[in-house]
């Protein structure tokens, strides 16, 4: 072996063998620092702030009835107008956001966590894998709203039901996705390599499979969060969600529809917030997905 050949392959020289990407691949997180991702994140921040600061920002409480203000249109005193029982819609909308935040940032992550756990554990052995897949299939066989209606029959309407429905819907979604990622990652030579040197299943799962399966799960998390706003809205719209007088974005829209002809302004505020929330989560998910493909 000539000395010069070794020189050619030395890392500092431009060897014929350096057809690789010198740049570090930007993590998918960097997608949140520009363009779509940033826009989505800012929008989420605004909506979350509105919800969290409701007690400070709202001129009235969610249930306070203001004498003489029945279905008044938007004005300086009542930005979004008032409803049929004299409540300030702006204040109710701010408090309503809180309900949706619980659903988005609590119910979805809980469902996701359980789903990931079940998917991870079950996919490692053939038998549990088959059983888990069948159960997931079964739950996913019901359209979400039909599942919601059936569950409401069981536990009655309320925020708790919305919570249950979202956990029940997201669990199989994440379980399945986890399984798909795990199946593809565990075939990778580097997992095999760990197996050959004697690493046990737990080691392989924790050190290699889970970290390398995270990205599609993150994208799905953002998607699922936007779907959760959807589900809360739809359930409340059908009268299966929060119980009055507690406000949620969906219930406010439902009330708005009831008064569509008398007070068309009613639903506008809550509609805008719902669309902003769904859109922002969707933008984040798209930004993450695009960063993953790049």
């Amino acid at each position, binding site marked *: 072996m000539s000395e010069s050949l070794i020189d050619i392959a030395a890392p500092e020289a431009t060897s014929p063998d350096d057809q690789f990407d010198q740049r570090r691949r930007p993590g998918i997180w960097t997608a949140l620092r520009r363009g779509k991702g940033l826009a989505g994140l800012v929008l989420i921040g605004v909506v979350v702030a509105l919800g969290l600061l409701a007690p400070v920002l709202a001129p009235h409480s969610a249930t306070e009835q203001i004498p003489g203000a029945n279905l008044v249109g938007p004005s300086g005193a009542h930005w979004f107008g008032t409803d049929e029982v004299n409540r300030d819609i702006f204040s109710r909308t701010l408090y309503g956001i809180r309900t949706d935040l619980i659903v988005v940032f609590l119910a979805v992550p809980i469902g996701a966590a359980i789903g990931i756990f079940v998917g991870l554990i079950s996919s490692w052995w053939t038998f549990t894998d088959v059983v888990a897949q069948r159960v997931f299939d*079964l739950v996913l066989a019901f359209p979400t*709203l039909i599942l919601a209606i059936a569950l409401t029959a069981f536990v009655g309407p309320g925020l708790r039901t919305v919570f249950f429905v979202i956990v029940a819907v997201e669990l199989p979604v994440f379980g399945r996705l986890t399984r798909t990622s795990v199946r593809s990652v565990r075939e990778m030579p580097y997992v095999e390599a760990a197996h050959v040197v004697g690493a046990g299943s737990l080691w392989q799962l924790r050190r290699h499979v889970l970290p390398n399966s995270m990205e599609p799960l993150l994208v799905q998390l953002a998607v699922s969060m936007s779907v959760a706003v959807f589900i809360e809205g*739809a359930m409340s*719209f059908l009268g299966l969600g929060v119980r009055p007088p507690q406000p949620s974005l969906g219930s406010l829209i439902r009330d708005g529809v009831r008064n569509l002809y008398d007070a068309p302004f009613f639903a506008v505020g809550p509609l805008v917030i719902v*669309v902003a929330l769904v*859109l922002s989560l*969707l933008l984040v998910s798209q930004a993450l997905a695009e960063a993953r493909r790049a």
Partner: protein
Amino acid sequence: MGAYLLRRLPSALVVLAIASFGIFAMVRMVPGDPVSTLAGPDASPEARAAIRADLGLDQPLVTQYVTWLGQLFRGDFGTSYRIGGSVKDLVADGAVNTIVLTVTALLLAMAVALVCSVLAVVLDNRWVNATLSFGNTLAIALPTFVTGLVLILLFAVVFPVLPAGGTPPDGFLARPDLSVQYLLLPAVCLALGAGAALTRFLTESLRTELRQPYVTTARALGISRRRIVLTQALRNALPSAVTVLGIQFGTLLGGAVLVEAIFTWPGLGGLIEEAISGRDYPLVQVLLLLSVGVFVVIQLVTDVIHAWLDPRIRIGAQA
């Protein structure tokens, strides 16, 4: 092909069997008693017992289940406790309306997806892509109840050109023009989300196909990009698009519940709500079972179409 179907059939039947028992058991466990609903709060214990025996509710759960299955196989779907009348007729009436709505929406979504994705890929123009992508995100981001409201506000309240809800008074076949008017808003509202999702998927898979080596081969032969998209890439993207279509159909069925409520469309959605709030066991069971059945059948059909479209599955390797 037949063999493929046969191989898939058992697991579909197992899902149906488990689901049917699950539904049956779940419905029994729901709090609230149909007897008190039927008999009223002041009925005597004897009268309650009589009603209970009459409905077969004094039998063990498994016996009730087997009896119910037997009846189902004979085409006897039972009688609604509350609304009265045969479950079969109630479901059939609602089903017609729901099917008309969802199938229209599905066809609409498919047409939009096909046109938009092919346009996006063939033109490959920055502005076209940006416009389509923006419209797409918006269509996915707008919840059904939002678009439904906006559509009603726009086309029935502000510019009253279309009916705000309901079905044509004399059925769909009597006046096709009227049917279109009634169908337009709810179908568009229902199709929007599915159409956007399908467009996104199809555009993405067409782009992926265009990066495949066989496309390079075709381009090196002097075949134009448009021709490659239409005769080769689309054909390759189709099998997985069919699978997504199947999933979207399920979503459409769920969405139909909401759309029917918004547009006061007398379909299965309203029926199931009414049945559950009235603890109408026979009706609830059949409706839930129907929704699972539809799902299983659609999965089966999409799998078979997928296999038929892909020669690698249709014809195994022979060499």
